[in-house]
């Protein structure tokens, strides 16, 4: 009865605090939408490289048509069909709507047979990174070399060797692990959800500081409310709030981000593991909030401390900069942030097909962190009461 009354009171106070609701629900939803869409291309390692280009064939010779076909056969290069005049296509490249423009000049095929070949033109947009432009140029040069050699060898009465034979001369092995990397939405949904969960410290601390300064805490104590009941009266409703946060942010990732043109969040195949991760992260975040609430003396201190500490935890923990981008040393350091434990656990479920066994270690990390925070909060509460 006592705890139930405290839980109900806490929920009513939160529901009437628009600033807190915006902080806990609107902020992460906004971050998820903006960051998922803005970083879509940057995280798309699992979607392969795709280079778009316009092609204008002013020659229409057998050689130019052959080159166009070879370019079209390349999976990495995506021709953007257009009947627009050359100037319009050039403008589109200048404004980065299409990355490259290739122009095969009139007389290209004929010149290929002569002693002085006629150069093709390639232009890349201002937003195309030099490494990407080099990749496109190398691909084009390879195809041109094939074409040039076949022409020359044909003139000598020899046949062009099969390109597949040349590929057999090199065996390649890649250790690249793009499959384990998250897409933009897979990274951003759990990241900003965790970020918002840890911001619960602000509304929780504000209420607790007010209770202490206004004598409400003392009144509750004289009514026989024990410290354990007071802690439970905060812990339970706010863990419930973290579950609501998780449900809403997952819905944003599954339904809202795709509606706006982004990728869709896949939830994996282990709902129990997902629930365990959410509960463990919620417990850790609320216990951390209780610790802050017991350490600070004013609402201003709570806001500043939470803001700074959360930003640091987020920066280290792979929330703002994904862990896979970090150098190995920073990746090791990042695993000291509770936000990283939460993020890795969620990514195990969303991305790596993990179940309860795979996330158990992260759950344990978060629960232990929460228990330490709770223990120190209870100790601090006792010391404050004595003084």
């Amino acid at each position: 009865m006592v705890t139930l009354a405290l839980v109900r009171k806490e929920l009513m106070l939160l529901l009437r605090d628009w600033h807190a609701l915006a902080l806990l629900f609107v902020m992460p939803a906004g971050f998820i939408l903006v960051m998922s869409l803005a970083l879509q291309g940057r995280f798309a390692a699992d979607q392969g490289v795709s280079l778009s280009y316009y092609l204008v064939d002013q020659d229409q010779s057998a050689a130019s048509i052959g080159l166009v076909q070879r370019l079209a056969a390349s999976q990495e290069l995506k021709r953007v069909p257009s009947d627009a005049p050359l100037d319009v296509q050039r403008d589109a490249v200048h404004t980065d709507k299409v990355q490259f423009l290739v122009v095969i000049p009139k007389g290209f095929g004929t010149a290929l047979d002569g002693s002085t070949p006629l150069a093709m033109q390639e232009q890349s947009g201002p937003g195309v990174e030099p490494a990407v432009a080099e990749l496109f140029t190398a691909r084009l040069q390879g195809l041109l070399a094939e074409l040039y050699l076949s022409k020359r060898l044909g003139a000598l009465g020899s046949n062009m060797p099969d390109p597949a034979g040349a590929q057999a001369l090199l065996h390649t092995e890649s250790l690249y692990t793009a499959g384990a990397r998250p897409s933009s939405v897979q990274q951003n949904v759990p990241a900003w959800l965790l970020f918002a969960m840890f911001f619960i410290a602000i509304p929780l601390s504000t209420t607790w500081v007010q209770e202490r300064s206004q004598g409400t805490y003392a009144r509750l104590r004289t009514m026989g409310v024990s410290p354990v009941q007071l802690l439970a009266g905060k812990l339970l409703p706010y863990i419930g709030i973290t579950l609501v946060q998780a449900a809403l942010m997952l819905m944003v990732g599954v339904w809202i981000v795709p509606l706006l043109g982004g990728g869709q969040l896949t939830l994996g195949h282990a709902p129990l593991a997902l629930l365990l991760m959410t509960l463990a992260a919620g417990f850790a975040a609320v216990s951390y909030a209780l610790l802050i609430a017991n350490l600070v003396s004013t609402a201003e201190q709570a806001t500043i401390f939470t803001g700074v500490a959360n930003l640091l935890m987020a920066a280290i923990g792979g929330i703002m900069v994904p862990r896979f981008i970090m150098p190995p040393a920073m990746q090791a350091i990042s695993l000291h942030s509770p936000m990283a434990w939460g993020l890795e656990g969620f990514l195990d479920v969303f991305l790596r097909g993990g179940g309860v066994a795979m996330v158990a270690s992260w759950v344990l990390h978060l629960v232990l962190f929460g228990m330490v925070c709770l223990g120190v909060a209870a100790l601090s509460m006792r010391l404050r009461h004595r003084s």
Partner: protein
Amino acid sequence: MIEIRDLHFRYPGAARDALQGLSLQVRDGSLFGLLGPNGSGKTTLISLLTGLLRPSAGEVRIGGEASPGGAPAAQAISALVPQEYAFYPRLTVAENLRCFGGVLGFGGTDLKSRIEEVSGIAGLQDFSTKRAEHLSGGLKRRLNLAIGLLNRPRLLFLDEPTVGIDPQSRAFILEAIKRLNAGGATVIYTSHYMDEVEQLCDTIGVLDEGSLLAHGSLAELLKAAPGQRNLEEMFLHLTGRRLRD
């Protein structure tokens, strides 16, 4: 009802005791006025009596039972109305009463009847749906009092319950306290308003620097301090005119 024997209390890190061997008896049904300058030990004494603090030495017995740090038996029959507005500003009057009633373990029709009862005593019936933060100072004081009455206390601690309110609200609260006392409740009342204490209390204790300087009815106190015409003069005579922190 309340027996205090040789009570000592020192805050951690303090150079001297906040209460220095205080002994006092408050009889059942009394309306006891506890007076003292700022820092004299009034709030410390109330905190010890309500179980918020534990004595360094000495004994407190409430209703015959030892009350080390607010024994459950003492908590069940007592209530504290602190000087601060000890409720939730974002909740309405009714929600505050329901919340604290629930905390006290009441529910259902019992809680409903208690809320109606205390709302009647404090004159809050017409304000039940109003948020506490939007109440006037007088109504806030009345809500503060109403919450303290939810467990129908036999022992009520009122810590300056009329600070900062208009004369009408003040008169209303004083009348309510008189009625509660007439109904059998023992009241420990602290205030800096001497006229209130003169008008209300049958017994008065004057506390300063952690010691009880005087204790008795107004007539007894005045008799013991010749030349002092009223409570205020007697109080200044006992505690001096030195300004306090």
